[in-house]
């Protein structure tokens, strides 16, 4: 294999271009309706992450990383985790950690259940960014192991995911 082909065949690319948006939309729906129907932050986040993974599989590493870089994924991951924790801390205003301090509204309406949808959104962002980052790490790790710069991995070396970050 002299030159690395970018992504997969035209068929996969065309189908991918069609379905990626729908997969992502479905993931967002699962996240936003988490407090009303089965689902929630985690499954929705996984679905959103699979959309990006499909992007990377069909269009290749470069295209996917241009749309959603690993640094962005890592930052989003941390910010989402922090915002989830912040929701917990804001509960302290009402007197208890993780108190549902927003008005609960009418049951079965989209805007109801107080902090639960907010927590779902935070978890959804966290899970999608995190799973995508794990996939990116694996993809880069495979590249590092297969590449010529194999030797010299010592304690002073970055983890493989890092070396991917610094190389850009």
């Amino acid at each position, binding site marked *: 294999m002299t030159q690395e082909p970018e992504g997969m065949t035209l068929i996969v690319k065309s189908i991918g271009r069609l379905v990626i948006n729908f997969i992502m939309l479905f993931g967002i729906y699962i996240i936003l309706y988490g407090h009303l129907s089965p689902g929630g932050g985690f499954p929705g986040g996984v679905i959103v992450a699979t959309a990006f993974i499909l992007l990377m599989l069909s269009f290749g590493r470069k295209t996917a990383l241009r749309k959603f870089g690993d640094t962005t994924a890592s930052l989003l991951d*941390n910010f989402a*985790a922090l915002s989830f924790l912040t929701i917990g801390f804001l*509960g302290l205003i009402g007197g208890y*950690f993780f108190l549902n301090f927003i008005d609960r509204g009418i049951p079965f309406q989209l805007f109801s259940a107080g902090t639960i949808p907010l927590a779902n959104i935070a978890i959804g962002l966290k899970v999608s960014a995190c799973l995508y980052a794990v996939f990116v790490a694996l993809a880069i790790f495979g590249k590092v192991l297969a590449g010529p710069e194999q030797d010299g991995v010592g304690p002073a070396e*970055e*983890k493989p995911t*890092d070396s991917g970050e610094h190389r850009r």
Partner: protein
Amino acid sequence: MNHILPLFVAVPLGTAFIILILAKVWRKAGVPFALLTSICLVIFSVSVIGQASIYRMGNWPPPWGIVLVLDGLSTLLLLTISVISFFALLFSIRYMDRYTAKPKFYALFMLLVAGMNGVVLSGDFFNLFVFLEIASIASYALVAFGCEEEELEASFKYLILSGVASTFILLGIAILYSLTGTLNMADVARTIGNMPANNAVLFAISMFLMGFGLKAALVPFHPWLPDAHPAAPAPISAMLSGVLIKALGMYVLIRLIFNVFGLSPFLSSVLMILGGLSMVVGGLLAIGQDDLKRLLAYSSISQIGYVAVGLALGTPLGIMGGLFHLINHATFKSLLFLSAGAIEYSTDTRKLSKMGGLSNRLPVTTTSAAIGFLSISGIPPLNGFWSKLIIIIALVQAGHYILASVAVLVSFLTILYFMRVQRHLFFGDLPAKLAKITEVPYLMRVSLVLLAIMCLAMGLLYPFLSGTILDPARDVILEGTAYVHRVFGV
């Protein structure tokens, strides 16, 4: 109601994420934030001494909502975790200069602390499991932090064995849930107490004994420890041997066996056999080791056996001895692992056969290491002597003469292998290769000296310690399943 309780978990967890975000713009963000959090946690844990309270997350009452339970036993563990992690962090500031990706190290370290604090405070099974996994996963990554062959192999072995243990724990929790319909520990204890004797409960207990026994490295479940603890960076070895095996292993075993299931003579004898085996096997295996950190790891198995035997006795004196040995082991074993790290930092080797005559070149490190060696061998007036003495007296009082003599013999074994270490490390001729070594950096020495002083002080101030933190912890264990009334009574 004490609002500090959720902060024990939330603050280190938040710090971990903040460090990772700030590290993108400021590479050195790890040290100040981690140290500040660690100091906060020490202050928090000192401030909760002598208190007992239940914290309802989001104001949901106990059987339905998540509760955090603070009592004497959890205070003892919280204090140990925060103090040891503070010293390990202080040591790591200069030690970690040899590694890259420092922000990731500190973030993982904070996750480890958050997970352990969560396990210690959690009042229901599922949260306990989640925090257990947080701490375990952080420790897998930290063991592999060097990314060399040895570290990766050790981490993989640890990951697989510990993963099996976690599966067993989850299975145990699932069985209990299907039996009682609740995950709250106090509620499970109440439901089981009202039920006729049930084999499913026994099965769940055996799952827990296997799972948490592996996390505590009791003998048939120990093989991961002698690989994982030496491979990790020194501050992490100190954390793993000093607190992780106790918070994730011994603490949960004690909490479940005494407060949830109630101590039966059968359980007591099972735990005693495991403890006795650990003492002997760990001690015997430690003798032949040439790798200093590996020797210390085997010695950890041997010492955790003492803790298990003392606690399994179930008598007030035995429990006292077990708990005292638990915190003593946390101090001197972290001191010893940090000393081993300091020696490795200077000499670049862990092989005892390649060292010698270090006492002239590394006076501070070797002196504090010597205090650690004397303490773990049980030389009065250092802390290790008193706790071993209490355990042996308790064993004799309870009529377990064979185990008492085994405990004395293993104590001799401990002296034997540490004499060997001292001979190789401190005395003899300095190898030509090591002629130019210098003492380790200032901050590393401060951490070693403070821990050595703690070893001495804890031996001398036993009456004070027993009055403030050990007695309340012992009372919690002795009250047994009356724990239920405390959780539901508040």
